[in-house]
């Protein structure tokens, strides 16, 4: 924690507890008095929004598991039972399904914010690494969950994703059979996916605690990227940031509710309302939108093993970001060159996402340019950004002068 604890137990019971299990002291120091830079902007509210999303997914998921049956003969029917017969079942399922998309929307904003303001740099490397672990766990959980309704897209997504492991030389086939519990995606696969889908969110919750713990050692980064110099630079987390986060959470919930109540299937795929059929592969399988950039990377490499290596390599790359960025200044506000490349990278991710959403033989907006070529260039740029541009820019760029303290420009602006 930054600074000594200021908790003062107010009652006899609180004093008794404080010497035995200082849980109130912990809560007080982490969510009430925690000194937070006073200049955090809207992009810093997504941490709280993400915690909220995790809570929503866990609560609605526990409820759905009360009605869901993880068996190939009954899974699809049980989901329709939830949609038709269970009291508010349609609401709970739509919240859970769209909640996954909202969760990823928030996590992507949260990650790009970290990249823009250099929140992964010394001394916050562990926060970033734990964050990447959370992101990978989220992707695994989302994939496992998407399998459960046992629609056509569920089944074929499970088949394709598990087959990624068959690219591993020598042991690939054995690993895939181990994952399946058979020679194809079938009931044993569904049951283990359900078990793991129920388990992983609690693992995520555990890593979230580590993530916040690691955050509370050096304290928050901020849009200026400079260190907190003293109490004049900070405000207590409560009520300043609790109320601010609540306001932006409420705005986020309007978007969430708009999807749940007025476009609940917009982000889904219609063929997942067809029950899984191991004899027929749908003509155009696409992952959920949040996986599209990775899907484009996988498809852009014409070799099975190298495609899978590129896919996992793109995720693993994120772990090395704190050391690939050689710049000493954190915030992109004071890094004119890095800022340009940051936006190019964001654009590259959208290009990959667009390429992934289109059929593999597609073209770019009615032009004769093959989307496959576009995806290949975008994939190359993805790796170039992290492994070449980031280290070089940090070495050659001249940052703008940094302000003396957080309080100074903030208070000047207010006057």
């Amino acid at each position: 924690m930054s600074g000594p604890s200021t908790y003062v137990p107010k009652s006899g019971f609180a004093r008794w507890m404080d010497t035995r299990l200082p849980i109130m002291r912990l809560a007080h120091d982490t969510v009430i008095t925690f000194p937070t830079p006073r200049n955090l902007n809207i992009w810093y509210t997504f941490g709280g929004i993400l915690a909220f999303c995790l809570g929503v997914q866990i609560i609605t998921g526990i409820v759905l598991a009360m009605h869901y049956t993880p068996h190939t003969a009954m899974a699809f029917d049980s989901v329709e039972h939830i949609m038709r017969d269970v009291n508010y079942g349609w609401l709970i399922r739509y919240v859970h399904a769209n909640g996954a998309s909202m969760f990823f929307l928030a996590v992507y904003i949260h990650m790009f914010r970290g990249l823009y303001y250099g929140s992964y740099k010394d001394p916050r490397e562990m926060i970033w690494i734990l964050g990447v672990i959370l992101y990978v766990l989220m992707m695994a959980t989302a994939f496992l969950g998407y399998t459960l309704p046992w629609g056509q897209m569920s089944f074929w997504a499970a088949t394709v994703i598990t087959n990624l492991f068959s690219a591993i030389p020598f042991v690939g086939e054995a690993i895939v059979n181990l994952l399946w519990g058979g020679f194809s995606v079938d009931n044993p696969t569904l049951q283990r996916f359900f078990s793991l889908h129920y388990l992983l969110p609690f693992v995520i919750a555990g890593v979230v605690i580590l993530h916040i713990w690691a955050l509370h050692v050096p304290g928050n980064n901020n849009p200026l990227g400079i260190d907190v110099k003293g109490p004049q630079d900070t405000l207590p987390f409560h009520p300043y940031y609790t109320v601010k986060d609540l306001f932006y959470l409420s705005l986020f919930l309007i978007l969430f509710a708009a999807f749940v109540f007025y476009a609940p299937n917009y982000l889904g795929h219609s063929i997942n309302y067809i029950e899984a059929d191991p004899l027929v592969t749908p003509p155009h399988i696409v992952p959920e939108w949040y996986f599209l950039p990775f899907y484009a990377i996988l498809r852009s490499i014409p070799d099975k093993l190298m495609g899978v290596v590129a896919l996992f390599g793109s995720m693993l790359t994120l772990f090395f970001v704190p050391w690939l960025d050689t710049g000493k200044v954190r915030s992109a506000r004071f890094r004119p060159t890095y800022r340009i490349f940051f936006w190019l990278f964001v654009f590259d991710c959208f290009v990959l996402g667009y390429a992934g959403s289109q059929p593999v033989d597609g073209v770019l907006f009615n032009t004769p340019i093959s989307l496959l070529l576009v995806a290949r260039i975008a994939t190359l740029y993805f790796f170039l950004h992290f492994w070449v541009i980031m280290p070089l820019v940090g070495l050659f760029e001249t940052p703008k002068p940094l302000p003396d303290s957080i309080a100074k420009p903030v208070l000047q602006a207010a006057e």
Partner: protein
Amino acid sequence: MAHSHTADTTRRDFLYIATGAATAVGAASVAWPLIDQMNPSANVLALASIEVDISAVQPGQMIRVMWRGRPTFIRRLTPQEITDTNAVPVADLIDPTARNGNLPENAEATAANRLTAPGAHGEGAAPAEWLIVVGVCTHLGCIPTGNQGDYGGWLCACHGSQYDAAGRVRVGPAPENLAVPPFAFLSDTRVRIG
């Protein structure tokens, strides 16, 4: 942050209280669907009533049917059993109320309030010889065994409760008579339970 104006402070406090209250209202509204989902779902409620053919049941016989996932006894009493159950004074019963879903809650546990006949009542009507009860011991939910015990009715093997031929508890620890579910005779040979 030092606001000296009282009016401003009051307005601020009101704002904070209103925001807090709205948060509480929102959270409480969200809780309801999460609780209500555990109530019986529409397909379970749709099966809440069943129809039973009773044409094959002779006096002295009993059939068991499943209603709402629980055994329900449909017993046709013999004239002797009807006489015996009518002879028991209500004052001697452990539970003096009829526990009949078709009668007011305070109806007495007379045999007449427990037994039913299909069709019209009164002169010339079929005798009230049908007993329809939920076959679940009112103590802790075991299923009593028929034709056992000292009262011509049921004995619950779990904790020794005994019921007479009209399903009334005669030996504890069960506190209540076997429940008579809401039912209606659709004809002389068909009854709808629930």
